[in-house]
């Protein structure tokens, strides 16, 4: 498996970014929904701090991922109807938007609430806005709702991948899976786009 993507499948760097960000966003989102009901305690403080640290990590990984994607390119699309291709790419753009908006809205929420922002107790990051209690509530709701919207788009994204894998029996999913081999004769071999 090569680091870079080729005409048949995604490279290992692109796969790493895809799956680590997927795991991070989902895990941190569920974590975030569960933690809000906690009574004040040092555990709550630490759990929130971890949520924020993971979110900032996802933001940094996303920046690296975007840079790698621009450098590395992508394998050509699997054969599929044009409408599917358009929707698939639109979904990817949307998901990129959500991956960016989730941590940024959290950062903004944290800033408006007037909390410090620390990355794994190592260093602090500046506030994006001045403390504002009214806007803080709004930003908190936006942060939460963005995750629900992301989940809806994610269901479409994962559902389409599974449909291609089990019904069309093509390489759409396989070429992104960490250790799977692509099916022979199913993919269009071509240049990187």
């Amino acid at each position, binding site marked *: 498996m090569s680091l870079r993507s080729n005409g048949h499948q995604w490279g290992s760097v692109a796969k790493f970014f895809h799956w680590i960000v997927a795991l991070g966003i989902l895990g941190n989102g569920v974590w975030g929904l569960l933690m809000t009901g906690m009574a*004040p*305690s*040092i*555990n709550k*403080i*630490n759990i929130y*701090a971890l949520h924020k640290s993971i979110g900032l990590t996802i933001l940094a990984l996303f920046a690296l991922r975007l840079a790698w994607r621009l450098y590395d390119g992508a394998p050509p699309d699997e054969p599929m109807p044009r409408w599917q291709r358009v929707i698939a790419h639109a979904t990817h753009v949307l998901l990129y938007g959500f991956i960016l908006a989730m941590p940024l809205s959290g950062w903004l929420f944290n800033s408006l609430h*007037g*909390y*410090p*922002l*620390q990355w794994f*107790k190592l*260093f*602090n990051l500046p506030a994006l806005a001045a*403390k504002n*209690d009214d806007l803080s509530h709004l930003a908190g709701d936006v942060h939460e709702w963005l995750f629900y919207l992301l989940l809806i788009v994610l269901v479409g994204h994962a559902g389409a991948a599974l449909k291609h894998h089990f019904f069309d029996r093509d390489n759409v999913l396989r070429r992104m899976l960490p250790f799977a081999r692509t099916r022979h004769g199913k993919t269009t071999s071509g240049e990187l786009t």
Partner: protein
Amino acid sequence: MNIRIPSLALMLAVATPCLANAADYNVQPGSTLGFTSNFQGSSFDGQFNKWTAAISYDAAKLASSKFDVTVDLATAKTGDNDRDSALPGADFFNVAKYPQAHFVTTAFHQQGSQVIADGMLTLRGVTKPVSLNVTFKPQGSGATLDVTGTVKRLDFGVGGGQYADTSVIGPDVKVKAHLVLSAK
């Protein structure tokens, strides 16, 4: 002529205690008592809105100088609702049991040009020595008095239970007071 000698003696008798004792002052509005601590790598400031201080001070008569300060702990405000509702609670000041903190000087000493007030701080049922740097500036008949010092919160059990983790809440609390004084 006979009268003058007893009257001089009387004047001396009256004046002597004044010469031996430091001057007493009243604390004027505009005086502040605040603190600075650290939460998640970021410092925050707080204020006590209700406190009283009896100040006797004279830089030349440190032996008879004295500070006696009582702080109403429930009046601590730090500009954050979560923090301000946590501070009076049992984990921190525990104002239900220990509503006030008390600081009284035991001695003053000079370290170079810096005057240092040594005293005992009683906070949350614990009494321990605390020293403060003193900057006293006479102004007309009054003065301004600035003191700074550091209190180790865990010495007094402030946030001593589950909040004892100093990587989350810093161990040192800097205390800073600015007093505007008028002669009594």
